[in-house]
């Protein structure tokens, strides 16, 4: 399952993701300013990262909308945005 995480609702989103062994977290909008402490594979929407001038931690991978849409069809999606 893909978890879209933005800042204001990050808490409930991240703790839901933490209970899902197949979670993939996608930081989006102001969510790219977060650096969550999670085991799950974590991505950040690339254009949101660029405009904010954020240096991503090495464990967070940039992702574009095309790939994000592929993933959410493959795996399902929960949004906390």
């Amino acid at each position, binding site marked *: 399952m893909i978890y*879209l995480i933005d800042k204001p609702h990050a808490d409930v989103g991240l703790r839901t993701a933490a209970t899902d062994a197949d979670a993939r977290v996608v930081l*989006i*909008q*102001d969510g790219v300013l977060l650096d969550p402490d999670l085991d799950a594979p974590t991505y950040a929407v690339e*254009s*949101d990262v660029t405009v904010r001038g954020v240096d991503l931690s090495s464990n967070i991978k940039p992702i574009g*909308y*095309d790939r*994000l*849409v*592929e993933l*959410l*069809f493959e795996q*399902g*999606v929960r*949004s906390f*945005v």
Partner: protein
Amino acid sequence: MTELGIVLTGGPFDSQRWRTAYEIGRAALNEGREVTYFLYLDGTLVPVVDQSFPACADGGLFDELPAEKFRSLVAAGATVICCGLCVDARGIDAESAYPAGVEVGLLPDLADMLGEADRVVSL
């Protein structure tokens, strides 16, 4: 039929959600997916015509205004439905304020969308 449903409750100038809704829907349309938007609450302010904002930097959030972006989604085949009660609450005159192809609906349309859609993104 709808494969991707997008529910948008944010307005055009108070959060980035309208733009995220656009980008995700656009990517899905490019993949050949059927996309339906349900605009609820301040989301109904997004496709209002005649928006004009001079400070639109190239590559910035408002490089094209929200209504233009949504007009292009309609042109690309997306279905865009606005909650009629939200439209009325905001004093939006749907006849003159919405471009062709932006529909006014009701919550049963949202219920139908949830029944049909394989995926729903709530923004």
